[in-house]
């Protein structure tokens, strides 16, 4: 790899101490992200994708601990103290969360929400910050930005709120944007606009790490995809490759479960039989083995490592990967 990646995550593990036991939410995740690149992490709820992201920002709940290494622009974030984290948060990495209403403090005006990061760091004067807030609102295509600044979050529509949240996350000009399910709480037409804006963010040269369970979001935006299952990445590949030729049976099953417009009208959706294992009940072998049609004795016994696969960036963690070219659907 030529230049050092913007974000380097190595063997990231996240544990939560509960009264009964220690729950292992993320069990060793490794990936990289370069500037100007959009990486998507895809997985079912409970696969640990959000917790992996939160661990990078030091935002785990108080009973959570993270191990491994997260390097952002050359700085180690795991175990870093709060002051270091606070310089990275906002100015280095912006966060866009799922629910745009609850992520904007209800009693603060949009102006305050947008400018507080700049003003608290002394990065701009009040008038300067105000100008930048107006620019930021125009950049996310909000009409009448002057009057919006005086409004409160509950006075905006859902899509507008998410765009304001995006503007707020970008106010301090971070190098990287984390987007945690940014479109899940929005309706379809608004989703499309938010995705366009995110693509615009990527085109401006920022790194974008997007977390989603929606493969449609991935297809339109991501350069690369990492598929997570039961706390691990089971496959990474360039988006086109992953869609055309998934190597991991889980990825293939996910793709098969996407409803299609062009197909037999009567065809039933292909679900994946069974449920993902609970963190405490993960088998010693492949976590997907119990739901996998191709699984054999080796799969239940030995956990497959994530191994680099034929094309350089792709990797798959499977003993019985599907054929590389023209995967079966």
């Amino acid at each position, binding site marked *: 790899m030529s230049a050092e990646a913007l974000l380097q995550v190595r063997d990231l593990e996240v544990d939560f101490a509960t009264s009964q036991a220690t729950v292992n939410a993320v069990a060793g995740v490794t990936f990289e992200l370069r500037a100007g690149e959009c990486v998507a992490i895809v997985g079912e709820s409970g696969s640990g994708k959000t917790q992996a992201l939160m661990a990078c920002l030091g935002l785990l709940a108080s009973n959570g601990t993270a191990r491994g290494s997260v390097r952002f622009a050359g700085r180690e974030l795991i175990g870093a103290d709060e002051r270091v*984290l606070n310089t990275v948060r906002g100015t280095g990495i912006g966060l866009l969360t799922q629910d745009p209403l*609850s992520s*904007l403090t*209800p*009693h*603060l005006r949009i102006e305050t929400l947008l400018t507080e990061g700049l003003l608290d*760091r002394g990065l701009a004067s009040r008038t300067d910050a105000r100008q930048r807030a107006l620019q930021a609102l125009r950049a996310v295509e909000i009409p009448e930005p002057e009057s919006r600044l005086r409004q*409160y979050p509950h006075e905006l529509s859902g899509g507008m709120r998410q765009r304001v949240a995006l503007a707020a*996350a970008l106010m301090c000009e971070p190098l990287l944007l984390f987007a945690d399910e940014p479109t899940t709480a929005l309706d379809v037409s608004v989703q499309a606009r938010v995705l366009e804006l995110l693509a615009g963010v990527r085109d401006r040269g920022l790194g974008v790490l997007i977390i989603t369970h929606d493969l449609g979001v991935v297809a339109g935006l991501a350069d690369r995809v990492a598929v997570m299952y039961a706390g691990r990445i089971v496959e990474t590949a360039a988006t086109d490759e992953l869609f055309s030729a998934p190597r991991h049976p889980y990825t293939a099953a996910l793709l098969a479960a996407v409803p299609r417009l062009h197909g037999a009208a009567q065809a039933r959706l292909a679900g994946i039989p069974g449920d993902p294992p609970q963190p405490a009940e993960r088998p010693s072998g492949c976590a997907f083995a119990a739901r996998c049609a191709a699984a054999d004795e080796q799969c239940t016994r030995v956990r497959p490592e994530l191994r680099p696969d034929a094309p350089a960036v792709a990797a798959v963690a499977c003993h019985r990967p599907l054929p590389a070219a023209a995967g079966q659907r």
Partner: protein
Amino acid sequence: MAEAAINAAAGGRGLWDGAWQRLKRSRAALVAAALLLLVCVLALVGPWFSAYSVAEVDWSQATLATPPSLSTGHWFGTDANGRDLFVRVWIGTRMSLLVALLATLVSVVIGVAWGATAGYLGGRVDGWMMRFVDVLYALPYMFFVIILTVVFGRSLVLIFLAIGAVGWLTMARIVRGQALALRQREFVEAAIALGLPTRVILARHIVPNVLGTVIVYATLTVPQVILFESFLSFLGLGVQEPLTSLGRLVAEGALEMESSPWLLLAPSAVLATILLCLNFLGDGLRDALDPRQRR
């Protein structure tokens, strides 16, 4: 276009404007607020209208405790020492309101700061901070104040501090519970992710959110403080002669209840008015600031 019209109609209303609109709709709260204002004004200017001063004995009367009368100028009568009760009642009201206001302020400031910090930081810090509160709770109220007054001597400031210092405990618990819940909210997470320092998050994102509850609880604290001060004065630990407070006047009046009932009636009427008004106002504020009634 339609959206703009709706926004214009909403008028960019905030938390407080909305609360004020709702408070205006509650007649009881408005009447209570007006009466309270009247009492405050009388407490400030009332003594000017009388020809007598607070410690002055009127020797011209045949008896010392003269009943209320317009002709003598003693509109509320005089006390057992021949001092004008009208003046004394308003001076006492002044004192009681002052104690109530300052003590409540002290308890709000300490309680909010302590509770919000404990609730927001959580974990071990929260545990220690709240155990400290529990220990103070376990000390008998009275005992604590008596020790304070004995050690530091009797002074007005000390009464404010002493009452405030015991009053903040409940406030801290209430605020801590709210902060604990708010900490889990996404907007707090978003603020942390923005890299804001803890004190800014506390001051800007947490405390304003608990203010509704705090205001309501504060209006309910004021009557408690007035009653507590009365109790202290009754025991001789409160306000000293020639100054007086409503609590003292009621206590003194109670001793002369059978011979000169006006000594009890006048100050108790004012005290009861204040307490009732505050309770109604507190009720109204609680409804007005209730988030479920927002919008």
